[in-house]
């Protein structure tokens, strides 16, 4: 059982929805980023999604892309990202960390070397945007064999015929992308999301977490009502981009977490 599985079992026992926060590793710099990541569990974050900086984030909007550029300009790399995760892990052995990004930096390091380093750093799961099930042999199967969760994205274009394939090698949870589009763009609608979540829960038997287009405590609560949890990324990252202090960023995160945690 990974930290992710343990976390969702615990949330289920307490009847609570999950709040997942995304931040870009090394944004705006290594030290500030580590301070923010260390503060996330105290702000009510159940699962940390740690963004891996990449020059060409094709599924992301300008907010996340600029965060990646800031991190890269500050000398961030995949190795430094794992170092940041390891530094967090020294003081927190229960909050799951999911690394989210694109395949090329991992491919460049080498899949086996990466998986060993990620395990060492205390990473629990991977979300790699440009690895659909058609490319499972690249990283998904080796990651599962190494004991890491490979968390798949399901989207509004994933129809019933395709869904079994999408969830087949998925573990931990399924990330439902609530809109067709990029991060930080359109707003998610709880009415549209509810039947999709039910469909994916049934096909996967896993918790379904909804992301993309959630940017306020109200939205966080509304979507959490109809899912197993929510992810907020761009809204938090834009606070960091505006040079808000770690304290202000974490205070905002807390309002979002409270939204997700106060469902009926």
């Amino acid at each position, binding site marked *: 059982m990974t930290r992710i599985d343990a976390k969702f079992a615990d949330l289920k026992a307490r009847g609570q929805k999950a709040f997942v926060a995304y931040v870009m590793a090394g944004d705006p710099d290594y030290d500030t980023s580590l301070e923010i990541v260390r503060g996330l569990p105290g702000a009510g974050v159940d699962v940390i999604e740690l963004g891996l900086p990449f020059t060409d984030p094709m599924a992301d*909007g300008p907010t996340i892309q600029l965060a990646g550029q800031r991190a890269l300009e500050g000398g961030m790399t995949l190795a430094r990202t794992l170092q940041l995760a390891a530094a967090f892990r020294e003081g927190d052995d229960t909050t799951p960390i999911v690394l989210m990004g694109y*395949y090329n*930096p991992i491919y460049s390091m080498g899949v086996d070397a990466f998986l060993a380093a990620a395990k060492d750093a205390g990473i629990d799961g991977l979300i790699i945007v*440009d690895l*659909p099930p058609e490319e499972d042999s690249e990283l998904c199967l080796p990651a599962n064999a190494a004991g890491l969760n490979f968390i798949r994205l399901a989207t509004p274009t994933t*129809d019933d015929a395709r869904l079994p394939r999408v969830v087949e090698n998925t573990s931990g949870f399924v990330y439902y992308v609530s809109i*067709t589009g990029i991060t930080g763009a359109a707003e998610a609608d709880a009415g549209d999301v509810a039947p999709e979540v039910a469909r994916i829960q049934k096909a996967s038997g896993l918790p379904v977490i909804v992301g993309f287009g959630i940017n306020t405590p109200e939205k966080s609560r509304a979507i959490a009502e109809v899912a197993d949890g929510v992810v907020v990324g761009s809204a938090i990252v834009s606070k960091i981009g505006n040079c808000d202090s770690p304290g202000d960023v974490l205070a905002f995160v807390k309002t979002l977490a409270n939204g997700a945690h106060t469902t009926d």
Partner: protein
Amino acid sequence: MANDLFNSFMTGPDEQGRFGDFGGRFVSETLMPLILELEAQYEKAKTDDSFWAEMHDLWTHYVGRPSPLYFAERLTEHLGGAKVYMKRDELNHTGAHKINNVLGQIILARRMGKKRIIAETGAGQHGVATATVCAKFGLKCVVYMGAHDVERQAPNVFRMRLLGAEVVPVTSGRGTLKDAMNDALRDWVTNVRDTFYCIGTVAGPHPYPAMVRDFQAIIGKEVREQMTAAEGRLPDTVIAAIGGGSNAMGLFYPFLDDKEVGIIGVEAGGKGVNQKMEHCASLTGGRPGVLHGNRTYLLQDDDGQILEGFSISAGLDYPGIGPEHAWLHEIGRAKYVSITDVEALEAFQLCCLQEGIIPALEPSHALAHVMKIAPELPADHIICMNMCGRGDKDIFTVARALGFEMGEFA
């Protein structure tokens, strides 16, 4: 052509969209169903006689195919060695090979009921071709172009606007061709239901590399027939410039199984391949990686971050290369070399003076390599280079590089 399919170089890609280890479908889940649908539709069209009949009709009457195969007599004399032929794809409607492929994709888009076409463009030639065909069929057209390229290719931007296209200057990242491709992919992922992404080169997720190659292969097929008519045999060497590599793949593909035909791809060496980030020679100066839906050779740093290329030619200014080229490079069926900006400029000027043809900067790279090897080859050696675009779009860039101000000529 060889009939032994088991030893053929022409059977790729496999069902995973791979050429050896290269290619594939590295896209987000939102796009995956669209790509599978496109593949199914293309497989259907490929064997549909009415699809190809429509293509050939438009190639003949709208594009002006077949393009001539031209014996460059004065250039041949000047170089004093091999016999140099030029495949004149710069005489196509819109002035480059790009329209060969665009017609195929737009006919497919119409069959799929898509009403909105998006494209990325570097030099603007693919954007102009897409805007042209969209105007002809009354389709909405949105072209993503790096802000830097919008600036250096202003005439093509105006052409696209005249043709009714919306040109979106891309400022994300560093505002170049790769960023334009990122933004086109972002558009596609947002407008999945009504939009068709018309990719301009033999790159991207499967089936694009194979599909674009098949549409461009008309170039090589014509050369086979024309050379046989002119010389009674096939050329000894075929040469083409490579950015993403669509004009080259179109020329090379029909010759892959003719082992006696040498194949040479010419990458953009910019200021020199030994200069970091000062060239676009992915095969000579890069290593395998994954970007824009496929595994191929990429310019990247030690961390797998993508580097910006540099070339005087906006059309070659891309940090990757089509996956089939990466495979042909690895198995050694084709040879890849690089040519610097300075060498390309020299070839550009020589072609103007010797043949009365103003070439685009892209084929000037291919021509520069012809200039290097032709003098060393015997007079009965036949070279065919692909004159894939005309140089009107480049005269401002060339003037600047040669130290002229356009105003001086007034």
